[in-house]
């Protein structure tokens, strides 16, 4: 069956800015997400410079006042989660890979796909606009608790607060549209012969992430409307003196906020799964178990949210319940990690750059997960909440998700996307230059956190009981490590752009992978498959005895 799409070559504008081709939309999301990552990283540089060298003017930002500090941390957190992790892990990889991996020519609804990027871009424009309004960008933390976020008199960034809220709401709409499109495509548009358990794990993970997102964001959209009205229309939804309750926002936010972390985690784990299978030349150990644990995580993620609110004054009986569920959820995640390790065992391991990133993910995420136990138990959390221990914990989970898994995915699928190989040597230098400084940034923060350093404080010198100059060297070490980590990203950027033209030509399947996206040219043409494939087997048939090659692609007849 040949594709239905025969048409004249479109002009530049239509090809790159108005395209409905899922691969072009994927690139739009990827490049936008990468640009926002630079911005988010720059903001981290800003506030870490203040923390490492308090009250010194920061090159490129000037003196960091309390208001500026609050805006920097708020923007860093918001940007990294909503405008880097989600667009890159879900929208970029999902858009590029899902139609290819399930064997069809595009998403089920290409124009909705295009619209989703346009709404996403609008959300970024709204966010960037907030940098230029009176008062500057929102400074009430990415969690936006009222009354701070509801009252301009408190947050001192009234216009920024509303613009931020609108930007987040638009981002939600974009991802609802995109996510539902992906889900319908994966459910309906699969190649003939691709049954449920023949679908690559990454596709499953992205779909599950989309479903989790869709089911959890609804109450927050409701809550955001209420906050918007509190900000702009003098309502009192979150004002206890007017019949409202600030805790309601917290609950609505975290009801979404906790599933959200799994929304970004699952695609990351999916990317790692794909890479491990290819570079260990071994099928995923316990494919179905990986799915079942992912579904279990997905469901459990909806009943753990109040562990973010243990010290907020919630009903203590709730704290008991949420402690138990939170500790429970560590089990399926650990199980998934064990399955990946079991996949490696006995495999023929090739330590190419993508594999280094995938293994790095497993190691670093393990640390993040284990440190979460102390925070998930309400007793210890009373001490550790909102300290740097918490910050180090969630960076040991988020950085593997948003940075390590992203680099794993980019280095793995770059040949398919751009038709060229990235430079391996530069890739390895970039890997070590990111991983080592990353640990040097956050291990000292575990220590300062346990010692009592509170988060969201721009200068400890102003608070007598918090001012512990003996810890300052740890804070400074952390900042210097960040500078190294940021510097090494230049190597990645150079490699990425230089290899566009000067990288070795990749061919269709440089990694010798068995999934469908590697059966088409690199980069794939419009319509993807010259002839629509039929699928005969699962996605990880490596090391089959009696075959000339050590892998059999999904679309090769028996």
């Amino acid at each position, binding site marked *: 069956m040949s594709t*239905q799409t025969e048409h004249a070559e479109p002009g530049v504008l239509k090809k790159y800015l108005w395209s*409905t081709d899922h691969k072009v939309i994927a690139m739009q999301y990827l490049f936008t997400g990468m640009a926002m990552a630079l911005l988010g990283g720059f903001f981290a540089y800003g506030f870490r410079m203040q923390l490492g060298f308090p009250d010194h003017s920061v090159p490129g930002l000037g003196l960091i006042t309390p208001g500026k500090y609050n805006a920097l941390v708020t923007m860093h957190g918001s940007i990294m989660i909503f405008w880097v992790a989600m667009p890159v892990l879900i929208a970029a990889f999902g858009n590029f890979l899902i139609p290819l991996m399930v064997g*069809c020519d*595009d998403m089920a609804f290409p124009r909705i796909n295009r619209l989703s990027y346009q709404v996403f871009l609008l959300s970024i424009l709204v966010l960037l606009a907030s940098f230029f309004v009176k008062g500057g960008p929102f400074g009430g933390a990415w969690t936006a608790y009222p009354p701070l976020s509801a009252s301009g008199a408190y947050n001192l960034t009234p216009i920024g607060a509303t613009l931020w809220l609108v930007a987040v709401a638009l981002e939600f709409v974009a991802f609802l549209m995109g996510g539902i499109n992906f889900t319908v495509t994966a459910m*309906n*548009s699969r190649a003939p012969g691709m049954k449920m358990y023949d679908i690559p794990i990454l596709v499953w993970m992205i779909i599950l992430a989309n479903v989790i997102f869709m089911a959890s964001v*609804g109450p927050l959209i409701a809550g955001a409307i209420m906050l918007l009205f509190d900000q702009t229309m003098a309502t009192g939804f979150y004002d206890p003196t007017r019949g409202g309750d600030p805790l309601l926002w917290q609950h609505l936010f975290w*009801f979404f906020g906790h599933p959200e972390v799994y929304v970004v985690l699952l695609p990351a784990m999916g990317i790692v799964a794909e890479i491990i299978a290819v570079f260990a030349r071994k099928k995923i150990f316990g494919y179905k178990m990986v799915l079942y644990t992912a579904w279990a995580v997905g469901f459990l993620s909806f009943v753990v949210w109040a562990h973010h609110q243990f010290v907020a004054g919630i009903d203590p009986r709730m704290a008991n319940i949420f402690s138990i569920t939170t500790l429970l959820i560590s089990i399926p995640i650990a199980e998934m990690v064990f399955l990946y390790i079991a996949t490696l065992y006995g495999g023929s391991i090739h330590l190419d750059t993508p594999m280094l990133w995938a293994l790095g993910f497993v190691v670093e995420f393990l640390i993040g997960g284990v440190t979460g136990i102390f925070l998930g138990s309400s007793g210890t959390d009373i001490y550790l909440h909102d300290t740097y221990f918490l910050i180090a914990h969630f960076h040991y989970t988020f950085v593997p998700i948003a940075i390590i898994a992203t680099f794993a995915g980019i280095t793995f699928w770059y040949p398919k996307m751009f038709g060229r190989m990235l430079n391996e040597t530069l890739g390895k230098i970039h890997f070590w230059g990111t991983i080592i400084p990353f640990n040097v940034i956050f291990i000292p923060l575990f220590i300062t956190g346990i010692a009592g350093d509170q988060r969201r404080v721009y200068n400890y010198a102003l608070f007598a009981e918090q001012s512990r100059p003996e810890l300052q060297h740890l804070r400074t070490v952390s900042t210097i490590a960040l500078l190294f980590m940021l510097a090494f990203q230049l190597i990645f950027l150079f490699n990425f752009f230089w290899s566009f033209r000067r990288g070795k030509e990749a061919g269709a399947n440089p990694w010798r992978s068995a999934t469908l996206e590697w059966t088409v040219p690199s980069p794939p043409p419009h319509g993807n498959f010259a002839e629509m494939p039929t699928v005969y087997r699962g996605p990880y048939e490596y090391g089959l005895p009696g075959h000339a090659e050590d892998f059999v692609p999904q679309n090769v007849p028996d």
Partner: protein
Amino acid sequence: MSATAKPIANTRSGTGIPTARLITWWVIASEIVIFGGLLAAYVMHRIGHPEWADAASHTNTWAGAFNTFVLLTSSLCAVLAHKAADARDGPRAAKLLRLTSLGGLIFLCVKGYEWTTDIRDGFVLSSGGFWSFYYTLAGLHGLHVLAGMIIMLIVSADAAKNRELQRVECIGLYWHFVDIVWIFLFPLLYIAR
């Protein structure tokens, strides 16, 4: 890609449900949690604030009941449109969809009248807990009615030419969902206050 050329991805059906209807069900699922979240927030506040009964007594039950009748009737038109579309009678389906839209318009006009009198009586969005929720709930619902009407008119334009008839059922499903939300809003805001 021309406006009507669909990708193969759109025409396949691994689940047995056509892609258009499948995406409609997912949209409805996402709307359940949006309205559900807002409704849950309202209900817990309302139960915790029995003194809101006084404010709540000022909503116009007859306007609410009439609007319920209007939406139920428009849902009837929507499902009859679906039946016509299944019989491949595009022009009849289009006519019935336009009638459904008309129902939506009547609903919004009644609501407009209702709100005008409420505001004239001094009850605005910021008049207190009950009114904030009332306007937000009914307003969000009203926006969905408006969006539904617009989409419905677009679908009926195609249907009149016997094109994209599968969309008649889909916009109907969305409309029935909007009707069901109102079926619960009506008692919450107008009778069991």
